[in-house]
């Protein structure tokens, strides 16, 4: 076990990936609590697909992937939020349409440029090796910004999540904070999909929050528990991925599933 850890952290790229991954897991878990409670879980999934489309287009046209896709996904986040606010059912359908449209555009963009299949596979399922030094700097600073914003506006985020109309009446700019949550989610997803992959990043948002809600009773304990669960699952996933030579993103998701099932069982234990 110890020797495995030493071996793991002797690679520079592993240290980078673990650093970025841990930060992204933390951001995703914190934002996830608000998104799941607001019934916006699917927005994370839709945004991940948009991010995939944007990254493929960026690769095909030669733009820097993160610099190009962050603004695209942020715009998509605002759009989806606007649609969901207006009508619940239409919002559902809009997410499905935007997801598949972005996926289609991404696949076509990727196919236009030969030799891109490896990159596309990496974005679909995530790859730790795909992180360059520049990516790491950008990812770390974006994640830190997300964390700081979340901590600084924690009380407002709680009020807006629990009851938007009340917060608005009391004098809080509820729409502004909704937009802030969408913005932070968009950034987290773009940064995180390099490691987790398009298809799996939304689990990083949804699972820790759901797991924490099995047993925690206050908002603060849910937030703290979700963050802890997310970090523990990320590290266990990474370890398992090296020990058994299985894909990282998928291992992290499986670790999250195990945590969710154990917490669900724990919640059923009579006290």
């Amino acid at each position, binding site marked *: 076990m110890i020797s495995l850890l030493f071996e793991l952290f002797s690679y520079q790229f592993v240290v980078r990936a673990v650093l970025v991954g841990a930060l992204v897991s933390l951001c995703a878990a914190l934002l996830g609590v608000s998104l799941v*409670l*607001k*019934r916006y879980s699917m927005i994370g999934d839709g945004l991940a697909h948009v991010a995939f489309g944007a990254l493929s287009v960026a690769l095909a046209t030669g733009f820097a992937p993160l610099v190009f896709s962050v603004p695209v996904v942020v715009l998509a986040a605002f759009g989806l939020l606007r649609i969901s606010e207006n009508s619940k059912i239409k919002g559902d359908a809009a997410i499905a349409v935007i997801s598949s449209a972005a996926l289609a555009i991404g696949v076509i963009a990727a196919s236009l440029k030969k030799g891109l299949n490896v990159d596309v596979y990496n974005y679909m399922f995530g790859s730790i090796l795909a992180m360059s030094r520049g990516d790491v700097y950008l990812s770390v600073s974006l994640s830190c910004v997300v964390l700081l914003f979340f*901590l*600084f*506006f*924690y*009380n*407002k985020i*709680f*009020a807006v999540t*629990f*009851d938007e*109309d*009340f*917060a*608005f*009446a*009391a*004098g*809080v700019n509820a729409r502004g904070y909704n937009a802030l949550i969408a913005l932070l989610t968009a950034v987290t997803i773009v940064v995180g999909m390099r490691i987790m992959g398009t298809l799996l990043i939304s689990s990083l948002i949804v699972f820790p929050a759901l797991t924490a*809600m099995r047993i*925690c*009773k*206050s*908002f*603060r*304990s*849910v937030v703290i528990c979700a963050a802890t669960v997310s970090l523990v699952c990320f590290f266990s996933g990474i370890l398992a991925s090296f020990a058994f030579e299985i894909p990282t993103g998928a291992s992290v998701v499986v670790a999250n599933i195990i945590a969710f099932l154990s917490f669900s069982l724990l919640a059923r234990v009579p006290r």
Partner: protein
Amino acid sequence: MSRLVVDSLSIDYDGRRAVCDVSFSLEKGEFLAVVGENGSGKSTLIKGIIGVLPPSAGTVSLSCDGRPGIGYLPQQTKLQRDFPASVREVVLSGSVASSGFAPFYSAEDKRRAARYMDELAITGLAGRSYRELSGGEQQRALLARAFCAARDLLVLDEPTAGLDPLISAEFYELVARFNSETGITTVMVTHDVAAAVHCADKILHMGSAALFFGGCGAYTETELGKNFTGCRHD
């Protein structure tokens, strides 16, 4: 000067005109009860007053310093009923706007939350999870939160929906006491016309348009009032 002035307000909701040309004004400290049948635009009017729904025509103006602080007690949504939050967190969130951009609640915010939890007899529930409470206890937590937020106006949308008559009567009593002690203008939607006449200063009877607006005494003398209070003597 009037505290709340609603001037020829119309609001469209779900493609139809739910509130049609309603005008009234309230002085500081007045207590208005909004009554009327289901679908008569009571809740839409309330959402127009707090600013969640934009007016299609007319204006709502609230005289206050800076951005208005309205304590709002909404009709509960399904989403809220199973929300993981402690009662303390819910009540404290009533002060969410008073701290401006500061990331934490001030000592004054905490004192206010403690005072209203005490007044509503939910101090013992402070650490309990909101989703484990009974309907009446949840409603008390939301009322304490609304009290914390009500700097200029208190707006209650059917505060006693789903509560038994005894708890309802107690609830009206609490609201009336808050109104008279703090002098904060209060607007309350209710189905209970008898209670409305008992504790409010003015009555607004809605039927998309304002069918009646005035004092309680005058209201009980109208045909409308007689029909709704069940005091017809003919």
